[in-house]
């Protein structure tokens, strides 16, 4: 037993996802799952769709999870969560079920299972770790991949500049299910993320959390920059942080100073072609993405009036001894 083993055990926080998992260096998804399970606490049962999180956390015969965890298929995380929840209910137990999936497993192949789970009003928190492509199988585009991003199945070339289509507006579809609570969050704002997990955990009924989770490998940025890239996604307006109650927008994280999208795009090789010299489409697509950000800002009313301690600049402020606001 090493010295750190002892210290590790004595830490003043619950750990749901332990070290030793095989995620890439700086993986946003590993961080997101760590934060979600820490905030949720030990009285949970997790399900997991196939994907990076499932694969890197459970290299047989080991598991990085410190809570009960089930994996069946790519498409059915919500379905097995529904079943687990029904069984717990039959036993009269109050353990919370959390279903997890990547964007592929949520926006695409697991979508109907998710819709059914929400429609049947299961007491499950569904967390989608949105890294905007099928990362585990080699970076294929999903319906969550942003417009103009390069993936192995949306390569930029003569015909088009990366992905042809728009990022699916999943939150609006979730909203249409009229569930008690749905929200988007980001690894760049851990206090906000934890608060949203706690809020969802308190609710008896279906809840949904979309967590923006940069993938250094698939997005083409250094693992060092995971948080910076995630923060810029929020600050540009490309990934708005919002909370929906019964489908209505109940609150948003205001932007103190919207950052130009180029700041975000420049840091990722998946958008490298948008800075190609002498290709007029590059400029066009950059303007397109800026327009999409501006659209989000307008649609969700993201522009704050004056400095707000919980806006995009204030929400991650620290002081001696921890976050300034929790």
């Amino acid at each position, binding site marked *: *037993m*090493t010295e*750190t*083993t002892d*210290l*590790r055990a*004595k*830490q*003043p*926080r619950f*750990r749901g*996802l*332990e*070290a*030793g*998992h*095989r*995620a890439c*260096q*700086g*993986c*946003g998804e*590993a*961080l997101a799952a*760590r*934060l979600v399970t820490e905030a949720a606490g030990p009285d949970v049962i997790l399900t997991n769709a196939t994907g990076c999180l499932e694969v890197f*956390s*459970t*290299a*047989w*015969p*080991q*598991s*990085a*999870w*410190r*809570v009960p965890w089930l994996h069946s298929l790519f498409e059915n995380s919500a379905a097995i969560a529904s079943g687990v929840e029904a069984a717990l209910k039959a036993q009269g137990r109050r353990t919370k079920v959390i279903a997890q999936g990547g964007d592929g497993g949520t926006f695409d192949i697991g979508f109907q299972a998710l819709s059914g789970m929400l429609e049947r009003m299961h007491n499950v928190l569904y967390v989608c770790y949105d890294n905007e492509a099928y990362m585990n199988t080699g970076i294929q585009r999903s319906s969550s991949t942003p417009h103009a991003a390069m993936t192995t199945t949306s390569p930029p070339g003569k015909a088009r500049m990366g992905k042809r289509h728009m990022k699916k507006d999943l939150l609006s579809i979730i909203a249409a299910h009229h569930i008690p609570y749905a929200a988007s969050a980001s*690894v760049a704002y*851990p206090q906000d993320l934890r608060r949203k997990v706690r809020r969802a955990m308190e609710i008896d009924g279906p809840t949904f959390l979309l967590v923006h989770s940069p993938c*250094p490998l698939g997005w083409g940025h*250094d*693992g*060092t*920059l*995971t*948080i*910076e890239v995630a*923060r810029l996604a929020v600050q540009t307006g490309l990934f708005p942080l919002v909370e929906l109650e019964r489908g209505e927008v109940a609150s948003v994280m205001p932007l103190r100073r919207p950052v130009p999208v180029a700041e975000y795009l420049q840091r990722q090789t998946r958008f490298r072609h948008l800075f190609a010299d002498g290709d007029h489409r590059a400029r066009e697509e950059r303007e397109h993405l800026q327009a999409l950000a501006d659209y989000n800002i307008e649609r969700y009313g993201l522009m704050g009036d004056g*400095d707000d301690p919980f806006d995009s*600049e*204030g929400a*991650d*402020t*620290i*002081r*001696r*001894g*921890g*976050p*300034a606001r929790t």
Partner: protein
Amino acid sequence: MPVTMTKGAFAKAGTSLAFKTGTWRSARPVHVHAAAPCHRACPAGEDQQAWLARMQEGRPREAWESLVAANPLPAVTGRVCPHPCESACNRGKLDAPIAIHALERWLGDEAIRNGWTYPIPTGQPRKERVAVVGAGPAGLSAAYHLVRRHYNVVLFDSMPEAGGLLRSAIPPTRLPRDVLDKELSRLLALGIEFRPRTALGRDVSLDELRNEFDAVFLGVGAGKSRHWDVDGAVPADLHEGLHLLKEWLQVGALPMPKAVAIHGGGNTAVDLARVMKRAGVPEVHLITASGLPGPDTEPDDVLNVVPREFEQAVEEGVKFYPHRTINRLIMRGSKVVGVEMVRLKKLPGANGRKTRVAFEGTETVLHVDMVVPAIGEVVDPAGVEALLHGKDYFPADRFGRLDGQAGIFVGGDARAWVKGYPNGTVTAAVGDGRRAAEAIDAFLSGRAPVEEERPPIPYEALNLAYYEPSTRIELPTLALERRNDSDEIEGGPTAAQAAAEADRCFSCGNCLACDNCWTLCPDNAVIKTVETASDGSHYVFDLEYCKGCGLCAHECPCGFIAMEAEAE
């Protein structure tokens, strides 16, 4: 940890710990205690970051104790130091520097008000005796730091009271004498044997000190005015600026000309100008070769006073003539009736060294009936001729050591300029005293003196995303019409203001226990050892699992984490 693998379709919780992802790493995170720029810039050697941290923890007494580990005179320096620390403060690049001097002053005043005693580190008493000559800030600091090291110290001064220029020259409107008295009496009460009215060269000789003591520190200041004339001409009733100030402080006498030209660009010139103006001299002109404080003035060319002193002098009606010198005295008989000024500037010459170049054709005349030189002072050689060799100052190194004079140490205004260690201020004298105490201790212990030198941390190494803009505190200033020759002009902060100002500090280069690394490591490879931490001692990297992604280093607000390449 022994891991039991379970046969079957599931694994026990947390068994991934058997897999040491640390082997993936090509660089490892390390904690680096870099120096904050404020610390690097402080001539007294204070670690402002460290004491501001104690302030942020709501522990002002510990803040003061940390401060006085370097500088025993915070109530004084908080009032008179030109605070180069604030010019260097990283926060200045975001909005406005921390008002370090105001917090230093507040701590000094709190210590006086609450009767806090200087903490003396435990240690074995030393039998050696050290003589300290001069009870100005240099000598007081040397004596204090020697007492902290448990030496027997005898402090000599030719004056009846301790303080040096703090008492004899700095006006009480900037340094109230009750503050000075309280700060110094506590210091002297630490077990320093003080022998006032005892002058080296008159009452005791250097040889006697050498015989009686194991080491001697000379903090005698620069008490003799520099020779001044204009092309050989001097007015019959010439009075030097420092002399006038001292006389005014001691006996309240001040000449009352109709118009005076004060020649000089330092504290003596500006203080005297303000004192004369406030006393009712109708016209006070200050002629200086330096430029005025402002963004366009180069740091080596600026008036050598705290910028607020200059601003207040202007408010009070002192007229400044920057980049000028006196070309000619206009005399009627042996009486001055005016001065001829000419514009000049410090410009690099053929050898690259800056020299003053006067510009022909820019001559102007001022009608004055008095001219006062305040162009600086040199060491009074009486009693120390053998060490001075006809020079203006002692050629000592930064530790105060004099070539070929083992056991003799010098500091403060008496020492010649050393690159990187400018003197001429109270804080520089305090720093000299501290370094000399180390050198004396080293000398008496048969080792080489050391000074801690940590690399400084630049603004660019901080992650500004985690700090919010905030406004610097405003300090109360006595209204113009209420200023007199005794009441302090600048006020100190309230306790609430002091706390709020301390909270603005970035904690440059030193962990502020924000938890970012612990919160953001995707690999659970940062371990926190206590529930509520306040510094970096409570975070440990678990290198068995750290993959070396560098995320924690990037997200550390204060630059406390660096990535270090692993050996191949």
